[in-house]
């Protein structure tokens, strides 16, 4: 537990920056979530959701759970949850995640690494039963095989 902040409320605002512009650089460790609409560089470690807004420009190595990119992101990202690139998003770099969503119009240039790839997903689909979560198939796989 950090010395200064003992509030565990997820909606508690720990840091707010107002104004026309801001430029931050350094190493940020955040237990919950973060909303960026300015220029940020360095290293980010987020324990919740990272939201890069439309005006946000982030050039950083990021370790997070979930991420939504509506602005510009450059760097290496490791996400244990979902990464979403919005239609206005612009991402250059490598993303290591379990699930990546790129909306139509979203820009992405780089490598994607699936974090936990079960062995059976490496098999061709006709040889393995698909056990991806939240996947709704038109016809059940068992009947399709017959």
């Amino acid at each position: 537990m950090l010395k200064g902040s003992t509030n565990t409320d997820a909606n508690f605002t720990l840091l707010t920056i107002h104004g026309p512009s801001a430029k931050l650089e350094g190493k940020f460790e955040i237990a919950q979530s973060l909303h960026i609409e300015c220029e940020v560089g360095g290293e980010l470690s987020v324990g919740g959701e990272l939201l890069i807004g439309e005006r946000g420009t982030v050039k950083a190595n990021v370790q997070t759970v979930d991420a939504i990119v509506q602005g510009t992101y450059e760097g290496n990202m490791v996400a244990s949850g979902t990464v979403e690139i919005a239609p206005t998003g612009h991402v250059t770099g490598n993303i290591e995640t379990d699930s990546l969503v790129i909306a139509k119009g979203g820009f992405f240039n780089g490598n994607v690494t699936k974090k936990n790839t079960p062995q059976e997903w490496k098999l061709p689909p006709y040889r393995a039963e698909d056990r991806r979560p939240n996947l709704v198939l038109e016809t059940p796989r068992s009947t399709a095989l017959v």
Partner: protein
Amino acid sequence: MLGRTKTQTVYREPQPAYREPQPAYREPQLAYREPSIPTVTIEPPIEEPEAPQFLEPEAVAHTTPVRQGPPPLFKVFGGEAKLDGRFEVAESIAIECELSGELIVGGQLVIGRHGVVNATTHTVDAVIEGCYEGTMVASGTVEILPTGRVNGDIESDSLVIAKGAVFNGNVVKRVPDPTIGIARSHR
């Protein structure tokens, strides 16, 4: 008398050949009407029993200004955060977490009561409710509120230390260019 044909005289109602012209012009209706005086009933304000003026000490001491306008540029939520680095902020920053490094603020710096700042700061105004350690150069006012704890040097134009605040360090009064104020006031 003989040559004359008898004319039967039938009595006819005399048709008036001439008719009085209908007056095309009409007196204009007066548009102006007597103003009806609106009746205004002034109801006496409903006097509610005043709520007891008890505010949580946190709510009183919290000085983060309530702002309306564009959404913030950078916002951190949650239980805890630790930021280290260089922060260049054009306007204002409110800190409720652990922060270290270098701060350059073009407006107001607010260190909330949860804030722990260990930094070299250049700012205009500062309000300190939490912990601050380091050197601060402020071109405006520095205010240390009762919960504030400051360890370090402050160079500022005006310094306010509230009763109960802890301050340990040097204060350097910023002497503004003496010719500016005097020259302007005597013009």
